[in-house]
Every structure is written in structure tokens, then in C-alpha cells.
């Protein structure tokens, strides 16, 4: 199964939300990383046939997904960023309804619902009304509904948004479990969501892909060294202006800064291993400019 974006563009009046994207994806986890407003959701909604491209197309094994209609969507699972649900249905009924519109036969729908609710640890809550669920529980039901038809293409738009750190880790592990033998496209602006589970990371900004590769590729692409140093607190603002600062931590001697720079910002700065978080900052952070 191969999903290709071919010169994909989405224009809203004067705004180009997605600009001339080209990419071919096969099985594996793809992490779509970008700041808010980068065009991730627009791209995902096009992949889910919810909005049509202004130019270009998306093909699944060579066929235009908008022409394939139901044949394409039967292979699709989607968890939108703003996951809406029917508040007066129970979790079980919600799952059964989604199963029905995904074309699952009743017996299979029931067994699939039971097994997925078990997998996302929602079995005990299956009789609860959707309106009573917490944010984390809703996200788990969200992923379960996306998996109902055992999709070959799983699209997860900001799946960890609004979750507490524990829920996020749990959710990440769940996605990792579900990623076998399918194409998972996961959008996020939280680096740790994709750092460990994505086979390939796509950096997106202003509607364009500007880097595609593994986490290591991205980290090595920044061409900067990472340093930590301790500086007096009153000088922090000055450092923030002069350098790309990944982190500021209060220390007993002043403030400990994590800085991306070609050379040590202070003579006693310690060199550190660059991470994806540093790369994210490098590509998306506000760069005040490095001065001598």
C-alpha cells in the first residue's frame, strides 16, 4: 500500500495552507512535526477526503483517493484533532455506530469493539455515556474508533493534545502497538510524541515540507553544536537575544542555559548531545541571531 501526495496544494483565498507537497508513504509511522498553523491539519483532512486539494492530488496505489471514494475510506482510520462524538450514546453504542458506517458486519463489529475497548483500557467504561468521559478516556475511544476497521492508513491528528504526561506516554505506547503493518501518519507539535515511535519525521512549516528523514537525520542536519552553561540570572535576557536557547533552568549559581551555537557561548560551556527537541527549536524557534 502506497500513499502519494503529488504537487498537493490547498489555497484559501489569499492563504496557501498547503503548498506543492510531494511525498510517497508506505507502511510505517510518519511523524508530521510542525508548529500550530503549519498546515498539518489541512493536509490530514485532505488525506481523509474531507477537503479537496486546490491543485495536485493524492493517490493510493496509483488511484486518486477522491475517485476511489468508499473503496479508499474503507482502508482509512482517522482521529481528528478536535474529536467530536455523540454525547448521549454510550461508549459501546458509539463504537457500534461508527463500526456500522465503516461497513463492519454486526458480529464482527461487536467482537472488534470489545477487543479494541479492552486494548485501550475502556472495557469497564463501555456502558458510560460519552459525555461523562474525561479527556484522556475520549482520546482512547477516539483511537479505538479509528482502529475499528483495522485500517491500512491510520491518520492521527494531534492525538495527545490536552493529555497529561502520563496519558501521553500511555497513548504513545498504544500507537506504537497499533502501528504494525500499516501506514500511520501522526501530526503533532510535541517532539516527544514522535521522537521514539516514528520511522520517519516530516517537518512542516507554512504549508511546506522542508525536511524528511529519521530523527537522527534531522538532529544531524542542524549543523550546530549544543552547549550548556551557567550564567548570572541578570544576563539571561541578553543570552536569549544573542543565541538560540533551548532551555533555561534556574541553578544555585544563576541560570543554566541550553544553547545551540557553532561555538561555545562561554569558555566553560559543556558540549551536549543534540536531541530532536533541539532540532525542532532550530527549525521552528524564533531565532534572534547569533552575534560574536
Amino acid at each position, binding site marked *: 500500500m502506497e500513499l502519494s501526495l503529488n504537487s498537493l496544494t490547498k489555497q484559501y483565498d489569499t492563504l496557501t495552507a498547503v503548498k506543492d507537497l510531494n511525498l510517497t508513504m508506505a507502511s510505517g509511522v510518519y511523524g508530521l512535526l510542525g508548529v500550530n498553523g503549519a498546515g498539518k491539519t489541512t493536509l490530514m483532512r485532505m488525506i481523509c477526503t474531507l477537503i479537496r486539494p486546490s491543485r495536485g492530488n493524492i493517490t493510493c496505489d496509483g488511484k486518486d483517493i477522491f475517485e476511489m471514494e468508499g473503496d479508499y475510506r474503507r482502508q482509512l482510520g482517522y482521529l481528528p484533532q478536535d474529536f*467530536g462524538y455523540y454525547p448521549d450514546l454510550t461508549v459501546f453504542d458509539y463504537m457500534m455506530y461508527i463500526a456500522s458506517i465503516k461497513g463492519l458486519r454486526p458480529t464482527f463489529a461487536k467482537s472488534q469493539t470489545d477487543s479494541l475497548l479492552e486494548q485501550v483500557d475502556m472495557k469497564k467504561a463501555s456502558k458510560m455515556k460519552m459525555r461523562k468521559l474525561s479527556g484522556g478516556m475520549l482520546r482512547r475511544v477516539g483511537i479505538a474508533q479509528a482502529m475499528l476497521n483495522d485500517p491500512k492508513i491510520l491518520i492521527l491528528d494531534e492525538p495527545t493534545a490536552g493529555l497529561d504526561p502520563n496519558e501521553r506516554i500511555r497513548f504513545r505506547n498504544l500507537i506504537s502497538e497499533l502501528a504494525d503493518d500499516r501506514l500511520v501518519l501522526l501530526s503533532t507539535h510535541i517532539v516527544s510524541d514522535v521522537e521514539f515511535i516514528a520511522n520517519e519525521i516530516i517537518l512542516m512549516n507554512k504549508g511546506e515540507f522542508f525536511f524528511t528523514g529519521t530523527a537522527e537525520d534531522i538532529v544531524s542536519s542542524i549543523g550546530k553544536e549544543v552547549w550548556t552553561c551557567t550564567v548570572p540570572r541578570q544576563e539571561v535576557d541578553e543570552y536569549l537575544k544573542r543565541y538560540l536557547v533551548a532551555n533555561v533552568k534556574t541553578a544555585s549559581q544563576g541560570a543554566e542555559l541550553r544553547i545551540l551555537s557553532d561555538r561555545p557561548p562561554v569558555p566553560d560551556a559543556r558540549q551536549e548531545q543534540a536531541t530532536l527537541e533541539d532540532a525542532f527549536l532550530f527549525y521552528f524557534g524564533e531565532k534572534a541571531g547569533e552575534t560574536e
Partner: protein
Amino acid sequence: MMLKYELKKVMNKRMNRVLLAAAMLLMVVFSIFAIGSFQARTEGTGGEIVTSLTAARILVADKNRWQGELNPEAITKSVESRQAGDYQSTSDIIDSTSRMLVGEFSDLDDYEAILSADSAQIASIYDTYHDNLRAMSEEYGDTPEKQAFLMEQYDKIDTPFTYEAYDSWDTMLMYATTCGLILIIVISFITAGIFAEEFQYKADAVFFSTRYGRSKAVHAKIRAGLIIATVVYGIGIGLLSIISFSVMGISGASTAYQLSQPYAIYSVTFGQMYAILVLGGYVASLLAASVSMLIASKTKTMSIAIVVPAILFYVSPFVGRALPFHTFFSLTPDQLTNIVNCARIPYIYQVGSIVFRQIPFIIVFYAAIAVAFLPLVYRNYHKLLLK
């Protein structure tokens, strides 16, 4: 399975449950009003006026003393009884035979014209009635085709009439009209929600990204809307009818409607007229559901989808009365819920050489419109793209 869960979505919605419960409660209340609208004077207890649950039965039993063929002898006896002071049991016969005698009432004395008729006039009352029917056909038929059509309809009226008290049907024609209007608004609200809720709850993205989200699932929604319209209307009117008729009785079901409206162009019994009224209300419910679903599927909101049927069925009658285009406003959808008035006035229309009556036309026409809107509802959802 899709339809089952679509219906479950509707029935589990708190607001829908409240509305349905309120609508059914109103049906019970209206039944009580209908039953309580009767008052009868008892014979045995010296003319005591009864307004209890039994009033309708007492009144009907009293009137049914005249049950049978309404021939000149029966009319003469009824007139004598009235002149002897029996107003209660003779009121229907005096009223209808007076109308048969003088045609459309023009002054107050006409209401009791039969009381001053001589025996020759009473003996020839059905001849006079047929002459008046002919005069009516000439008055309302402004073309030869319309006149011939009206006469054809009037020829279907079987005379002499057979009298049986029809008070419960007469009352229910009024109450079922009001209840139909209430049910239509409830149906509009619920069916609009079927298509608007995907957006209201932001469930649209998941819905439209599923295999059948743009095909069978839309069909299921439309079917759910039609089922809701049928079931809600059926249960509502059924409840009203069962409660009311079981208390008031069904005397007069096979009495000719002409005994109440001698110049009506619909040769039907009271039972049939009630069935026509219920059918008109059902078509109105289907139309309301269809319009609501169409608008909700287009606008993605409930508000306009509820307002439009309300305008069609509630506001249009007032506009129709205020404006001069009576022919046009006699064909607007609100007429479906105004069957009693439609039956009272001989509205007929001519297209080329074809002449037709109002009630069959509006029922068939709006049923066809309701059905014709459904593919548009499907198309709206099938092609819908999100932002």
C-alpha cells in the same frame, strides 16, 4: 445496524426525549380537552347539565334517537320535537336540513329555516337540496368544465342521508388539526438534528471519513428521519384518537360528512374525513421532516431548519389571509393541516381541460415534493466538504 444506531442517536438525545415526552403529554391533554368540551342535558334528572367524561356519550345517545334514514317523515318529527322544546337532540338535523333548504346561510333566520318550512317543502327537501347543489356548482364553477366537475362531485352524494350523531368526529376534526401542528414542529426539530448534529458535535470529520459516511450512512439518516416522522405522528395522533374516541365513542363514523357541510364537494363519511385529515397531517409531517433535513444538510445548523417548516405551517396561513392571492394560498403547505376548512369551501382548479380538487391535489403534490427533496438531502451530504 446503521439505521438502528441512527435511531438510537436520536432517541438517546436528551432534548429529543424531553420534546417527545412533552408532545405526548400534550396529546393526552388535548384528548382531555376534546372530551371535556362536551356538555349534555340529561333527560331523567330533570334537565341537569352534565360536563363530565360521560357528557359526550349522553349527548350522542340523545341525538341517536333520530338515528336512521333522514327522510321527510323523520325531518317532520324532528321539527316537531324541536318546536316542543327539544334543542339538544335535534340540533344537527335542524341545522343541516335548514342548510339543505336555503343553500348557504345568508342571515340568522336561515339557521332554523326548516322550522318555518311547510310540509310540501319538507317533502321535497332533497329536490331543493339538489337544486341548491346545482346553483352552487354554477356559482363556484366559473368555466363549463368546472361546473361539470362540481356537478359530477355533487352527484356522488347519496341521498336521502342516514343520520347518526357525529359529535365526537366533529370535535376530533378540530383537535386533530391542532395536534398535527404541534407534532409537525416536534418532527422538524428532531429530524433537523439528525443532519445538523454531526456538525453540532463536531463528529463530522469521523463521519465523513468512514466508508459509508457519504453513501449508506446518509441513506440511513434519511430513513431515520422518515421513520421518526411516521412514528411520532402516528403515535401522537393515535394517542389522541384512542383516548378521545374510547371515551366519546365513534358514533357517526359512517354518517355522510354532508350532514355537517351539505355543500362540501367531498362525498365522504365523517370517519373518512377524519382519515383524510390524518393523512393530510401525515403528509405535512413528511414534508416538514424532508424540508428540515434538506436545510440542515445544507446549512449544517438546526435553527434555520426548524424555522422554515414553522413559517410554512404557522406563518403562511396568516400571510395568506392578509394577501389577495387566495388561489395561490389555497395551495400552500399549511392547507395540509387545514383540511376541515379545505373541505368546507369548494376550491377547484383548472389546468387546460383538467379540473381538480384542492385536498387530493395538495396531498399528492406535497407527498411528491417531500419525496423529491430526499435525493437533494442525500446529494448535499454526499458532496459535502469540510473547511
